[in-house]
Structures are given as structure tokens and as C-alpha cells.
């Protein structure tokens, strides 16, 4: 058996075998979409696209689902997932916008400004930040940052102002978005740095020779040249932000509540759930068919957005090929 394996393979068979193995990955992805979609189907059958919209209390709807048991009546499948979708969009948008600003500045610092010695420190640091497990971010969030925010930053006046609607403990939009920013910034930095280093230095030198100061030259020439890479970084990072489950579940307060910007600053402290954190919260109840369909429908939406974002990432990276750079 092994002897046969050690002998040189005919080329044709090798190509077919390797191709078949590669194809397996494609089949796996297809299976993933099909399985998740099939499980989510009952929810879409009952709610149509109204599922995406607002309406009613999610706590009540999901409570009904948990209570319904095996032979659930059709009415139980009623679900309006907008608060979760809104929560996902809210945290990801804040994190991506904040993270993008930090990432562009930090990348310029790493590639153009930092002295060699400092750079040798910053690059591994960025890599470390990218690889810290989300549960550790969540742990620090829930044990250190949330109590700090709850006890020192939120005033008792603010707590009283929304007392009748929701309890403020510190866990909520602000803390979740902040930690999410920290988690996705390193990804953006890695991609932007790579693009920055691939811009021919002569372009910027030309601008400096024309009298721009070096920082201006970076802004006017280098950053402009890598605009597609910056967009691609934002797209990839938002894919990560949308799917973050564990950390958000730990620091977001776990209430099916849609934070209201109308509340002013208090808004930042209001709890929420995202699609991914809702899956973590409800996964234990998926023995009940309606809740199972609901959980899988959240997963399907996440999968769909991952799909869209990866296509978007591919499209925005296309112009980069012009400069012969890898994005």
C-alpha cells in the first residue's frame, strides 16, 4: 500500500486527485449554504421579507418559540429581527469607522514615520493584537471595562433617565464597539501596510521634490494610490466585525433592545444583541423547531453578508492590479 504511494505518480492522476481535493472545498461551501438555508427556511416561509423589519418585542417572540415545543403552531414562527440586525450594523459601523481612522494613521506611522527600532516593536505588537482570542478580549471587557464604565462613567442621573425602559450596567453599545475596534484594527493595519510598502518610493520622492513636506506627500500620493486597498481593508474588517460573537455576547448586556440615538449620550451605554451574539445566547434552545429556524435564519443572514463582503472585497481590489501590487 505505502509502496504504491511512494512510487512516482502519473502526472495526469496527480492533477486529477489534487483538483478533486480542491473541489471538495467548493462542495463544502455549497453544502454550508444549503444546510443553513434549509434549516432557516420555516422562518422565511412564515415571515417573508418582513423578517428583516421591525415590529413587536423580540424577547416575547423568542420566548414563545422556546415555550412552543415540537408541534408549534404557525403563529409562533412570527419573528421580526430588526433589533438584532440594527445592533449588528451599529457596532460594526462604529468599529469600522473608528478602526479605519486608527489603522490608516498607524500604518503611515509604521511604514513612513517610525524609526527602524520602533518599527521592529510595533509590527509584532499589531500581529499580537490580531491573534489575541476574542474570549480574552471579552473577559477583560466584562470583568474590567464594563464594571468601570458602570460605576464611574455612567452617572446615576443617566441611569434614572432610562430606568423604566432598560437597566444600564455599563455593558452596551459603547464598550462593545470599542473592543470590536481594537479587534479589527490590526487586520486593517496588516492590509494597509502591505499596500503602502508596495507603492514605488519614487512617486512620493517626486512629490517631495516638488516642495511638499513628506507627510503631505504621503497623503497626496501614497495614500491616494492605495485607496482601493484601504477600502478592501475596511470591507474585510467589517466581515470580521459582523461575525464577532463571543466577545459581543460577553460585553453587550444581552438584551434584545434597539439602542435609541434619541436618548443622547446614554445611547452609548444601552445594551443590545447582534445577530452573532443572539446565536450564542439562544443556541441551547435549538431543540425547539421554531427557535432552531430562527437561529439558523440569523446564521443565514451572516453567511449572506460574508458572501457579499467577500465579493465586494474582490471587486475593490481589482484596480490594485494596475499597480502590480498585491492587496
Amino acid at each position, binding site marked *: 500500500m505505502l509502496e504504491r504511494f511512494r512510487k512516482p505518480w502519473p502526472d495526469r492522476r496527480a492533477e486529477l486527485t489534487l483538483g478533486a481535493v480542491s473541489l471538495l472545498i467548493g462542495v463544502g461551501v455549497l453544502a454550508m449554504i444549503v444546510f443553513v438555508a434549509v434549516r432557516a427556511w420555516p422562518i422565511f416561509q412564515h415571515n417573508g421579507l418582513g423578517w428583516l423589519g421591525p415590529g413587536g418585542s423580540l424577547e416575547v417572540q423568542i420566548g414563545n418559540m422556546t415555550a412552543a415545543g415540537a408541534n408549534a403552531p404557525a403563529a409562533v414562527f412570527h419573528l421580526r429581527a430588526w433589533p438584532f440586525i440594527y445592533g449588528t450594523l451599529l457596532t460594526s459601523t462604529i468599529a469600522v469607522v473608528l478602526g479605519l481612522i486608527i489603522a490608516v494613521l498607524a500604518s503611515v506611522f509604521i511604514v513612513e514615520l517610525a524609526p527602524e527600532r520602533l518599527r521592529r516593536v510595533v509590527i509584532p505588537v499589531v500581529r499580537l493584537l490580531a*491573534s489575541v482570542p476574542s474570549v480574552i478580549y471579552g473577559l477583560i471587557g466584562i470583568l474590567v471595562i464594563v464594571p468601570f464604565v458602570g460605576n464611574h462613567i455612567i452617572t446615576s442621573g443617566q441611569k434614572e433617565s432610562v430606568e423604566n425602559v432598560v437597566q444600564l450596567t455599563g455593558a452596551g453599545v459603547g464598550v462593545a464597539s470599542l473592543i470590536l475596534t481594537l479587534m479589527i484594527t490590526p487586520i486593517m493595519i496588516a492590509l494597509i501596510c502591505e499596500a503602502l510598502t508596495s507603492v514605488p518610493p519614487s512617486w512620493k520622492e517626486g512629490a517631495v521634490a516638488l516642495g511638499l513636506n513628506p507627510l503631505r506627500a504621503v497623503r497626496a500620493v501614497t495614500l491616494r494610490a492605495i485607496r482601493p486597498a484601504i477600502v478592501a481593508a475596511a470591507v474585510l474588517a467589517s466581515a470580521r466585525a459582523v461575525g464577532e460573537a463571543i466577545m459581543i455576547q460577553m460585553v453587550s448586556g444581552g438584551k434584545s433592545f434597539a439602542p435609541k440615538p434619541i436618548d443622547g449620550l446614554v445611547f452609548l451605554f444601552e445594551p443590545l444583541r447582534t445577530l452573532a451574539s443572539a446565536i450564542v445566547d439562544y443556541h441551547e434552545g435549538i431543540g425547539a423547531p421554531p427557535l432552531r429556524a430562527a437561529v439558523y435564519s440569523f446564521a443565514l443572514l451572516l453567511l449572506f453578508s460574508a458572501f457579499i463582503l467577500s465579493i465586494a472585497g474582490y471587486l475593490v481590489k481589482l484596480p490594485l492590479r494596475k499597480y502590480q501590487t498585491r492587496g
Partner: protein
Amino acid sequence: MSTLTPSAPPAGVPAAAPPGRGRRSSPGSWRWSDRAVLAAAWAAGIGLCVIAAAIVLYMGFRGIQYLRPGLIFSRPQVSASQAGSGGFLDPLIGTALLTVIGIAFAVPLAVASAVWIAEYGRPTWLARVVESSIEIVAGTPDIVIALFGLSIFQLGVFAPLSFTSEGGGVYGQSFVIAGIMMSLLALPPVFAATRDGMQSLPGHLREAAFALGKTRITTIRRVLLPSVRSNIATGVTLGMSRIIGDTAIVLLLAGGTPRVETQGSLPVVNVLRGTGSALTTYVYGNSPAGEGQAPEKAYAAAFVLLIFVLLLNLIVGRIGRTSADSGAVAVAAAGV
């Protein structure tokens, strides 16, 4: 590519620059908006370092405070109080087991497809399908991968892989199932590192082998794969750190029992089919977010977890340094 022209801010200047800067612009003479951007860039770079240092130091402080050898070598107990709930030997074993299974499934798959893409890649549309599939896998949230695993392995066909109930119900949960799904996390970094390594190999390596009358596949096995070994190692290390750090898949697919529970009587298979937890779910379960209110245990386990991640990071850096160009790959693949 690196340091700026000699007029860059202090210390950004290579040693060759003359001490006197003459009339060239220095930050002092810039417009205030430029100076603000310069300050912000420095602040962003230094700030990230400070945050990373704060995380590591804080976790280190808590780890030294709470981690006792007894915790590592004793098994978890079901107990209401923090003092009686034992250590995390079983989650440690669980993490090791999941890492081994995940890597064992991911590496052949990823290396085979990377070789196929880089060396054959025909028909082109199929190659593109495979590459975008891997990109989709890379972008899919771990929680969705976990749910997918649950739905597929609850099928009766896969009962031999899964923890089953007395009545024959298939839970779709076990170490081997969690490990297989974990391999999807490790797949993209291993694939990207291997493919980039293959594509950056100079063409004369292949030509020399062909000139000696070697077939394509022999060239790949004897010449090309050995020369991208360090790239594969980088990819595997990155994949390992993703597997070790993942919580969602373990939470949904490993069963969530504090101890390693076995299923059946075959010696190795019973553990693979059994349930348990990993360090990540142990941390999660003992934090206020889980049921157990044992923050001290959570800190101790998180400290061990962080040490693993730091070690893997060091290894990636080391491999990157020994082979010049895979360092860039390491940084790029970290983003995948």
C-alpha cells in the same frame, strides 16, 4: 520603502544623514494641520503598543495572582463554590486534541488545493471557484461554521462520529466533529501561505527539474514543496493560533461538559467521540457571561491561553526571520 527622506521627524533618519538639516522642512515649520496629523499618527502607533502591553501585563498580573500548578494538573469538579471546582486539566487536553484534529484535517486539504491552484489551476473557472470558496470560508463567522457543523453532523449517517444518546439520538457533538469544523478555520491561512510561497518560487527551479526529466508531480514533491516548507509552517502556526483561540465552535460542537466524557469502549475512538471543553470555553463558562461565577479560574485559564498565543506568535516571527520573504506572508495571512 521605509524611512522617509532625511527631513522626516526625529530619529526617522538613517545614520547616513548629515547632522545639519539645512533649510529642509522640519515638523516645526509645518502647518498646524500637518503637525496634528503627524502627532495623531505617532499617537496611533504608540497607543496600540500601550494597549497591547496593558493587555499582556494585566493578564500576566492576574495570571501570577491566580494560577497555581494545582489548577493545571487537577480535573474540573462540579461545584457551587470557586474553591471546590477543581482545575482545568481536561480543557487543556481538549484544546490540544482539537488543535491536533483541526490541523490534521486542514493541512492536507489546504496544501493540496494550494498546489493545485499554483501548479495546475486548469480549468481556470474551476480554480477561481476554489479560490473564492476559500475566501468565503475565511470570511464566514466561526459561529456560522459551528451551526453548519451542528446541522450536518446531526444527520444519522454521521452517528459513528458523534456523541449519541441512549435512545440513538445523534447530538452532532463530539471532539472529532468540533475538530473537523475547526479545520475550516485553519484552512485559509495555510492555503494562503502555501500558495503565495509556491507562486513566489523562481521559475528556474521548475525548469531545472523538468530538464532532468522529472514529471510535474515529482517536481512538486521533491523540489517545490520542500522549498516552501517554511511558508507552510507559518500557515500552520497561524492556523493553530486561530484554532486555540476559537470559542464558538467548541461551545456548540464539543458538548460543553467540563470533563472529557467518553463514548463507547474503543480506547482512542471513545475520546474522539466523546465530549468536553477547551480552554476558551472554560474561560467563557467561568466568566460572568457563563454560568460559573469563578473569575479567578477564568483569569488563570485565560493567562495560559494567552501564553500559548504569545508562543505561537513568537514562532511565526522566528520562521519569518529565517526565511526572508515569508515574513510578509505572515503579516498578510494574519489578516485573512
